[in-house]
């Protein structure tokens, strides 16, 4: 069995907007969501730059206490994104009660919950004072264990932890479950916490930009003057559905996911590899039955680190050097949404495809010798996109690429 996979719902909660409509406007306008978090400087960070995400307020009328208290920060973002995704998929509680749906979500930390637990244990020396919610907030699977309970999901239920490629792989795996006929509906996505505990160890690697004089200019993927990434977060949710199932129930089909490619670099833990990136992209194209020339737009992983962007530019030139599709990294606006990025960038790119524009790679002022070979959209382009490819790469050399096309009318 090799069924087709439709996207029938999308939800987003990010530093460039708390819903699909606001995010679309921000993408078109090239608006940066980056700012300064003074708490990070006090805490000992080298860089206080971050995507500024307003924490959602989840009140009693939205969720009762038991469902609410297990949500860590990442879970709160994921809940908000999922409410939106289910709403525009036309799936309410009654629908989910009558139809089995699964969840595969990308998440790779829950730092604040772990730190909070540690503080209580250090001060009180008694696990009985941790409360019932500590364990449900602090595990990597915090998002899926909470959302599956909240939305009463009864299908596949698991978290994918694959560093900054987590949620791209989550979508890829969701596609496999649907293609093989194991599930008709899978909620996929990614969540990323933004509290000061979450990124301290990442800051230690000196990979964050320190361009604090103008935060909106700090994230500059592919630009010769880039000095590091800006961490960010939030959550993105997508409803993946068997294409025929979606047609049958009269759902709006936003896009079709046609290809998933993956690879592992098999090298040093933080070392990117252009070969690894290229293998994932080529495998995704092959899976989609597409050629490089079919791709109108590439949403690059490019985080604004000197090395990572260079290797991705080399890989993009290898795969797309002849066809030269438009390329942009939306991380220029959002910063690096890490565990969430694979899913959020499918949402961003699908919004572009729906609305016939390419969001700009802002701050791309001066190409370097590698990025000058690419067709990077430094300004918003009004153009049709029929098929796009989205890259996500992570520590440990994990690579993922997804190919998505416009639904047939």
């Amino acid at each position: 069995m090799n069924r087709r996979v439709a996207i029938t719902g999308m939800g987003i909660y990010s530093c460039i907007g708390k819903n699909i409509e606001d995010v679309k406007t921000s993408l078109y306008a090239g608006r940066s969501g980056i700012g300064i978090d003074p708490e990070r400087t006090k805490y000992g960070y080298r860089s206080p730059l971050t995507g500024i995400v307003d924490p959602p307020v989840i009140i009693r009328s939205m969720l009762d206490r038991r469902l609410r208290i297990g949500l860590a920060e990442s879970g709160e973002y994921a809940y908000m994104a999922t409410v939106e995704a289910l709403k525009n998929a036309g799936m309410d509680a009654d629908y989910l009660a009558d139809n089995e749906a699964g969840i595969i979500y990308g998440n790779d930390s829950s730092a604040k919950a772990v730190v909070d637990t540690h503080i209580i244990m250090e001060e009180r020396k008694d696990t009985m004072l941790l409360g019932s919610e500590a364990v449900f907030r602090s595990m990597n699977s915090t998002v899926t264990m909470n959302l599956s309970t909240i939305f009463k999901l009864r299908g596949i239920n698991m978290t994918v932890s694959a560093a900054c490629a987590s949620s791209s792989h989550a979508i890829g795996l969701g596609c496999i479950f649907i293609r093989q006929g194991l599930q008709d509906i899978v909620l996929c996505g990614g969540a990323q916490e933004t509290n000061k505990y979450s990124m301290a160890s990442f800051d230690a690697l000196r990979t964050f930009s320190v361009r604090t004089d103008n935060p909106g200019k700090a994230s500059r993927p592919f630009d010769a003057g880039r000095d590091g990434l800006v961490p960010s977060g939030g959550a993105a949710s997508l409803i993946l559905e068997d294409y025929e199932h979606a047609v049958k129930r009269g759902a709006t089909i936003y896009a079709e996911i046609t290809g998933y490619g993956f690879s592992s670099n098999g090298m040093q833990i933080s070392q990117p590899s252009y070969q690894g990136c290229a293998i994932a992209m080529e495998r995704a194209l092959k899976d989609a039955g597409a050629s490089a020339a079919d791709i109108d737009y590439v949403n690059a992983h490019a985080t604004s680190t000197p090395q990572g962007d260079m290797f991705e530019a080399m890989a993009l030139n290898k795969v797309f050097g002849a066809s030269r599709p438009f390329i942009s990294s939306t991380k220029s606006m959002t910063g690096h949404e890490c565990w969430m990025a694979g899913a959020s960038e499918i949402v961003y790119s699908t919004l572009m495809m729906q609305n016939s524009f390419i969001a700009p790679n802002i701050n791309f002022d001066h190409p370097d010798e590698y990025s000058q070979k690419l067709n990077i959209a430094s300004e918003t382009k009004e153009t049709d996109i029929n098929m796009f490819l989205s890259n996500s790469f992570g520590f440990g050399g994990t690579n993922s690429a997804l190919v998505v096309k416009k639904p047939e009318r």
Partner: protein
Amino acid sequence: MKREEIEAIVKNFLIEEFEVDEKLITHEALLKEDLGIDSLDFIDIVVIVERNLGFKIKPEEMTDVRNFRQFCDYMESKAGNQ
């Protein structure tokens, strides 16, 4: 601590922390069946009591506690031991 004070404190955290409808809280109200307090909630009651009253209670000592009155009896015995 007087019995009335203990009952007021317990009633208050059932309403405020566990979102129990005040009208349901009677002496004979069953904690699980009537007030919706489950096994995980008992873990949280330990934390709340310690925070508000300064002493520790143990879920394993409450195996025979079924209703609001019995819970207040248990709380009274623990408070009396402080």
